[in-house]
Each structure stands twice: as structure tokens, then as C-alpha cells.
């Protein structure tokens, strides 16, 4: 036996070393659920290599900062002017988009949808990579000491990057989305078709599990679907670059990642996500139409005539009246302004709960309707208070949402004003016996801006 071992000494040692490594590998595979079983030796290796990387990155950034902060400032003024102009344009666009978003939130709230928000992120710098073309992963300079934990999403402003695979005290290993073992729940933006995003041997990214009878076009945007419980829904993933037949009955959709995975420098780690019911954020929003209305000239007050006209309270006001049951619903629309009357039962929640409407009532000496009575809601457009606009909006929404509501001119009160002069309410019927001073909205401020 000894002679055999002696004769094949080299081979025996080779087999022994290989056996030990296979054994170690088998133990790791068996305990794959516990990813921490090799943590200590990995920390040693990372601890040897990453300090050099950090040092080099520091030197590199320092020289870069010196160049960009002191020598590369030519054209900054012109660029500043251009950026300011862009900001103006984007502000207007933001107003429009925020209105759309508020509408979407309202709809989500109606359907009790839950939303996921990125509540907290940690910026990190890429300091290294796995260095192999067979596994695509990077090292970042933030670790468990900074709140990083495995399975956290890693993103850039461009799109998703990957997920944290292992978190060491001061560094973390991030598995990129083009690694062959990664999987991301993704969907096509237009068609909302869902699939699984995976990497290939060549480092490409492919959207799989989309049936081959679906229509997918080159250039379609791909977003995260949120199905993997790692990436919040709706983050940009990439764009479709090639569509072909795949295995079995699925398409092979090649995707160009939105983030440049080969040249990553700074990333954001999503350390906290929040899931909550959608909240309609219409209150407090300023609509684009309101901004334009403030900037346009408007009709001035008629202070003297106001006394004779019943409740000629608001000059440039949109008046809504919630009348009692039995009021005749007639639609009345002026040229530029609407006088809307919501016909509701007195005990309706709208009549009872709308404190904003109650506070805005200006119906002096009008015959008091039963219960909540005739509530006249004066929306002071000129005040510029967003809350008022929101009240108006909510009232209109309630009005639209109820089958019993209708637009009608006031029957027992007179919301006539200069702005709604096209409405011809029965003034004599609704005129109160005495004309008390009507609370005036700040119409004087309604001067052209």
C-alpha cells in the first residue's frame, strides 16, 4: 500500500486536495439557505483586497475633484442660464404631471391599491468587481455598518443595477442584473406583459417568460414589476433591442439595461421601502389652469351694485350651491364661469360634512332650507389658496360621483355675481328682504398679475 502511495504520491495528493474542495463545496451547496457559512473567510479575502481599491479610488477621486472644481469651470455661466431656463420649463411640466399623479392617486385610493415607495437610500461608490467574465458582480464601499443588508435593491438614476448579495462590515457584494444567476421581475411598459429578466453568458440581459404570440416591439421600455419583492415597481430597467424566438413557446427579448452596468461609479442602495395605501394628494395641489388664471386679467368688482344684488359676494368666483331636495335641476353654464348647484338630500354626507362649504356660505336672509340648508360654496379663485381650490375640486368630484346630483341654477338664493353674470337666476325670488353686507372675497387681489 505504501509503495503504491509512494509511487503515485503526486496523484494521491491531487486527489486529496480535490476531494477536500469538493467536500467543502458540497457543504456550501447543502447549506445554501444559510449564506453566512463562508462569511468569515470571505471577509478575510475582501479585507485584503478592498483597502487597496479604496485607496486607489480615493486618489482617483481627489485628482478628479481638483480638476473639475478648479480647472474645468469654463462655460459655467452659460450653462447656468440654460439650466435655469430648463427649470422654468420643467416647473410647468411638473404642475401638469403632478395633477396627473394626483388623479392616479385618487383612483388608486378608490381601489385601495398599495404602493411601494423608496423611503431611504444610501449612496455608495463602486470600488471593485468580481473580475471574472463568468460572474458579474461589483463591490461597493458601504456595508452592514451603513445599514446595508442582503437582498436590498441597488439602483442608479438611470435604472436598476442589481441586488446586494453579501454585506460585509464596510463593503458589500452586489450581484448585477446581467449575471447568469440573477433574476428580476420585469414588465413591458406599454403592453404590461410580465416576464423574468436574466443575464446570459455573454453579459446580455434577456427578458424571458413572455409568450411568443405577444406583440413586443424593439424600443419598448422595460420596467420593474415588483414581483421579486426586491425592486419597487416601476423602476426603469432598460429598452428592448431585439426580439426573437426563444425556447419552447416563449420569446427571447434582448434588453439593453438602462444603467450602464459596465461603467458604474456611484449607486444607490435602497435600504428602506414603504408600502402604504395610496393617498389622494389632490388637496394642496395647484393646477396649471389656476396658475394661468392668476396671471390673466380678470373682471374687477362691482362694489356698488353688489348691495342691491342678492349675495353678490364674489366678483370672480365660481359659486356652487347645494340646494334642498326639490330644487329644480337645470344646467346653467356661463361663457367662462360655471355656477353649479349640487342638489343633494339635506341629510347627505356632502351637505353635512363639508365644513369648507359651510364656512363659505354667503346667503344673507335667504330662506333657510331645512337641515343643512342651501349651502353656497364660494370658491375664491383669486385668493390663491390651494386649499380652496382643493375644496372646489372635491365638491366637483362629489358632484360627479353622485347620481343624484345635478347642476342647477339657484332657486331660492342668488349667487349672481359679475363673473357669473351670464347666469340669469330669478333674482326677484331669491332676493332677500334686506341686503346685508356680504362677506367679500379678496376680490381686490384679483387684479391682473
Amino acid at each position, binding site marked *: 500500500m505504501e509503495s503504491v502511495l509512494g509511487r503515485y*504520491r*503526486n496523484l494521491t*495528493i*491531487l486527489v486529496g*486536495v*480535490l476531494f477536500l*474542495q*469538493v467536500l*467543502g*463545496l*458540497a457543504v*456550501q*451547496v447543502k447549506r*445554501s439557505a444559510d449564506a453566512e457559512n*463562508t462569511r468569515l*473567510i*470571505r471577509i*478575510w*479575502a*475582501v479585507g*485584503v*483586497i478592498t483597502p*487597496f*481599491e479604496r485607496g*486607489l479610488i480615493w486618489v482617483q477621486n481627489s485628482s478628479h475633484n481638483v480638476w473639475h472644481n478648479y480647472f474645468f469651470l469654463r462655460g459655467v455661466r452659460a450653462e447656468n442660464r440654460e439650466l435655469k431656463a430648463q427649470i422654468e420649463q420643467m416647473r410647468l411640466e411638473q404642475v401638469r404631471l403632478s395633477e396627473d399623479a394626483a388623479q392616479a392617486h385618487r383612483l388608486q385610493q378608490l381601489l385601495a391599491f398599495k404602493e411601494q415607495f423608496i423611503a431611504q437610500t444610501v449612496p455608495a461608490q*463602486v*470600488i*471593485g*468587481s*468580481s*473580475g*471574472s*467574465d*463568468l*460572474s458579474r*458582480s*461589483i*463591490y461597493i464601499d458601504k456595508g452592514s455598518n451603513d445599514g446595508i443588508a442582503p437582498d436590498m435593491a441597488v439602483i442608479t438614476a438611470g435604472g436598476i443595477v442589481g441586488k446586494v*448579495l*453579501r454585506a460585509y462590515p464596510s463593503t458589500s*457584494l452586489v*450581484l448585477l442584473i446581467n*449575471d*447568469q*444567476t440573477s433574476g428580476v421581475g420585469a414588465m413591458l411598459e406599454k403592453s404590461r406583459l410580465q416576464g423574468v429578466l436574466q443575464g*446570459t*453568458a*455573454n453579459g446580455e440581459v434577456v427578458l424571458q417568460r413572455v409568450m411568443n404570440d405577444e406583440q413586443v416591439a424593439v424600443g419598448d421600455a422595460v420596467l420593474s414589476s415588483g414581483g421579486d419583492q426586491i425592486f419597487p415597481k416601476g423602476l426603469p430597467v432598460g429598452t428592448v433591442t431585439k426580439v426573437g424566438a426563444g425556447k419552447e413557446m416563449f420569446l427571447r427579448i434582448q434588453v439593453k439595461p438602462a444603467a450602464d452596468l*459596465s*461603467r*458604474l461609479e456611484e449607486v444607490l442602495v435602497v435600504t428602506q421601502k414603504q408600502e402604504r395605501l395610496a393617498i389622494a394628494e389632490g388637496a394642496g395641489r395647484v393646477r396649471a389652469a389656476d396658475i394661468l388664471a392668476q396671471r390673466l386679467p380678470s373682471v374687477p368688482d362691482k362694489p356698488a351694485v353688489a348691495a342691491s344684488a342678492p349675495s353678490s359676494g364674489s366678483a370672480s368666483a365660481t359659486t356652487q350651491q347645494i340646494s334642498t331636495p326639490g330644487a329644480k335641476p337645470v344646467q346653467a353654464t356661463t361663457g367662462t364661469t360655471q355656477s353649479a348647484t349640487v342638489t343633494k338630500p339635506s341629510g347627505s354626507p356632502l351637505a353635512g360634512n363639508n365644513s369648507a362649504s359651510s364656512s363659505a356660505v354667503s346667503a344673507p336672509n335667504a330662506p333657510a332650507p331645512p337641515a343643512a340648508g342651501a349651502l353656497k360654496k364660494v370658491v375664491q379663485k383669486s385668493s390663491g389658496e390651494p386649499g380652496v381650490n382643493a375644496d372646489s375640486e372635491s365638491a366637483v368630484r362629489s358632484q360627479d360621483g353622485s347620481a343624484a346630483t345635478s347642476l342647477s341654477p339657484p332657486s331660492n338664493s342668488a349667487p349672481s355675481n359679475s363673473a357669473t353674470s351670464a347666469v340669469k337666476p330669478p333674482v326677484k325670488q331669491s332676493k332677500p328682504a334686506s341686503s346685508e353686507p356680504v362677506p367679500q372675497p379678496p376680490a381686490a387681489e384679483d387684479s391682473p398679475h
Partner: protein
Amino acid sequence: MPITYTSGEQIEVYRFSIPVTVGVPVLALFLQSFVPRRFPYFSYLDLPLLVTIFFAMARRNPISGLFTGAAIGLAQDMLGAYPIGIYGIAKTVVGYLASSLGAKLDVENAGARLLVTLGFYLVHAAVYFTVARGMVSLTLDWSWSRGILAGLANGFVGVGLYFVLDKFKQRT
């Protein structure tokens, strides 16, 4: 004639100082981890494999070669995302074969080194894929075009690298 068969007595065996023995593999691991961040195509190279082949062929001792390969491969595994041991096994085999080959053949000239490096790159890839797919169940795909190109790239870089590392050889 790129490869010549020589007897054991004719082949010179080299050794290296401890700083070179430790520093060169660590430097290779560092460069392999750091450089692809700036130059993505650098990841097609496998500097730790080239260092393994060089040390194994220079020492011409199978036991020394397999331990060198095992150590470098395991260190490379520790920096990667996959279980530890895949690179270790592959580089152990390469280290053993390279030192065994170095003991029988004189591979000092550039052409021989290019062919040997290409061959060992493919052996390394074959062992790696076998272990990764057979033991770890990784869904890795092999691409012949990429494999041959990467092998040639490693071969050319290896020729230059071996020329530099030859300066650190010490005769026994």
C-alpha cells in the same frame, strides 16, 4: 520548434522569493478585481490563472503547482459571488497539469507559452463549467466563440506577463 521534449536533468527548476510568491498572486487578484471597473473587457482575462500557470511551470513540481493553484483559486472564489471552491478545483487541476507538463517539456519560448496558455485556459473553463453545472447547479452557458477568443487573449497577455515574471526567477 516551439515545444521540445527534454529529460528531467536538462530542465532547470526555479524558485521565487517569498514576497514574489505572495505579492504577485495578490496583485493579480487585486488587478482582476479593480481594473474591469474601468475597462470592462479586462474581465475576459484571468490574471490569477496566468500566474498559476507561470509558477507551476517554473517550479516544475506537481505538488507545489497544485497547492499554488488551489490557494489562488480559493482566494479568487472568496472575492466572487458563487460558492467557494469552483475556481479552487479548476486551478488546482491546472496547476497540477502545468507543473507536470513543465517537468517534461521545455516551454520557455513565446509560441509554446501561447499554445500552452490557450490549452490550459480551455481546461480551466471545462473544469469550472463541469463543477459549476454539476455540483452547484449554476445555469452557466458556454460560448465557444467567447471561450476561444478569451483563451487567445489570455495567451497573448500571458506571453508578455511571463516575460516580466521571468525576471523574478531564481535558480535553485
